[in-house]
């Protein structure tokens, strides 16, 4: 279904965008729809958290948040439609390529701190809707702060090698042998929610160790421990009921009455609490079926 809608969207958007720019705000229903759909994708993909320096009072989407990693500190970029400091000059093709291949409009590789190894699975339609939403936000002339990385990790020309090792470009086709909720759940977990970026441990080169998919890690972002969310009865979420999981995603509330803080608190606040109950249930359905890991 998504596939079929794609050529039409790809055709209409390039025509519609200049129109929006000229008239200074979209009166056209098709654009308003794309922006609305894109707003949901924006939440499901958790863009706001990393691209906002909330603690320093930065304006939304102007970037500048420090992401401390073993390879150095990344500072997230401005993704408002500002033409100089943001992504205002990006074409649809630029946008698709960044998410699909991890490549900037100038052809240089993007560092995988931007989780394109997950976002590469997003459909074209979702990506273009997301772009429509981002381009409907206020441009903010906030300059980007350069990353603070130590060689060789600062060498951008090495990144394509990383991409060869750790990234399979393009969306993954739905598995027809599985129910729709499972397929939707997998898309929400793997493509949009990029859950594995924190819940799957990384190799020394920073790629995800898929043999330990969603099994948690002691060295998550900011040095935090990240729990195992496979259905393993002792080490994972095997003892949680479906409604326990749904409640965590909706309210951040765990079965013992504790409330998630840290990274997951932010994910609940910005993403999972904003999803439809149906999408949360799909995530639960999918997580129930991943291989249990110790």
């Amino acid at each position, binding site marked *: 279904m998504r596939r079929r809608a794609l050529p039409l969207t790809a055709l209409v958007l390039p025509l519609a965008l200049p129109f929006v720019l000229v008239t200074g705000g979209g009166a056209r229903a098709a654009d308003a729809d794309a922006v609305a759909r894109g707003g949901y994708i924006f939440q499901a993909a958790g863009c706001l958290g990393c691209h906002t320096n909330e603690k320093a009072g930065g304006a939304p989407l102007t970037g500048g948040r420090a992401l401390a990693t073993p390879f150095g500190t990344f500072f997230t970029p401005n993704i408002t439609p500002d033409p100089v400091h943001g992504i205002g000059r990006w074409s649809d093709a630029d946008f698709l390529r960044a998410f699909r291949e991890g490549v900037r409009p100038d052809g240089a590789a993007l560092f995988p701190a931007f989780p394109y190894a997950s976002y590469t699975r997003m459909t074209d339609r979702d990506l273009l809707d997301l772009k429509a939403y981002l381009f409907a936000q206020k441009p903010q002339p906030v300059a980007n702060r350069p990353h603070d990385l130590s060689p060789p990790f600062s060498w951008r020309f090495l990144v394509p090698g990383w991409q060869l090792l750790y990234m399979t470009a393009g969306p993954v086709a739905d598995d027809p042998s599985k129910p729709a909720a499972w397929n939707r759940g997998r898309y929400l977990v793997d493509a949009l929610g990029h859950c594995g970026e924190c819940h799957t441990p990384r190799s020394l080169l920073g790629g995800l160790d898929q043999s330990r998919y969603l099994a948690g890690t002691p060295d998550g972002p900011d040095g935090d421990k990240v729990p195992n969310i496979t259905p393993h009865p002792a080490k994972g979420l095997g003892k949680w009921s479906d409604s326990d999981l749904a409640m965590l995603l*909706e309210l951040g509330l765990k079965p013992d009455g504790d409330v998630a803080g840290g990274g997951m608190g932010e994910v609940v606040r910005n993403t999972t609490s904003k999803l439809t109950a149906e999408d949360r249930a799909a995530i639960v359905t999918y997580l129930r079926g991943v291989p249990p890991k110790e």
Partner: protein
Amino acid sequence: MNNRVVNALAAASLSALLVAGFGGMAGAADPADMVKERQQTMKKLGGGMGAVAKFVKNEGGTQEDAAKGAEAVLAVAKMDAKAVFPTGTAVGVGDSAAKPELWQNWSAAEEKWKAMQPAAMKLAEAIKGGDRAQIGQALGATSKTCGGCHEDFRVKKQ
């Protein structure tokens, strides 16, 4: 003032001092004990939240259990933040999970702590009403007040 009055006053203030001193010591002078005490408080809070959640999830919790849970939440919410987070009980003391930032941003932390009380009152109110959807909403609002603090000031445990 005659001597007798002065003596009486002195004795009274001395005993007040003694009581305060011993009271403090009998409570929790040892920082590690204060951390343990806080963990008990948080357990009580979590137990209360969990009881309400069980009812909302319709997993065997009764409305009465939920009401008791909300009562426990409210009791903790009414505690003074200074009593729950005495200085000198940051991470490193016992198995404290409180970041030093909590005290560096004390007014923000205290404000967040205080935000729990109106939320907990609404939660208790909703449980009296008995409507599961409304209780769920109030529970969400209450857990949000917990989460804000956990996000900023709690070291990740596990």
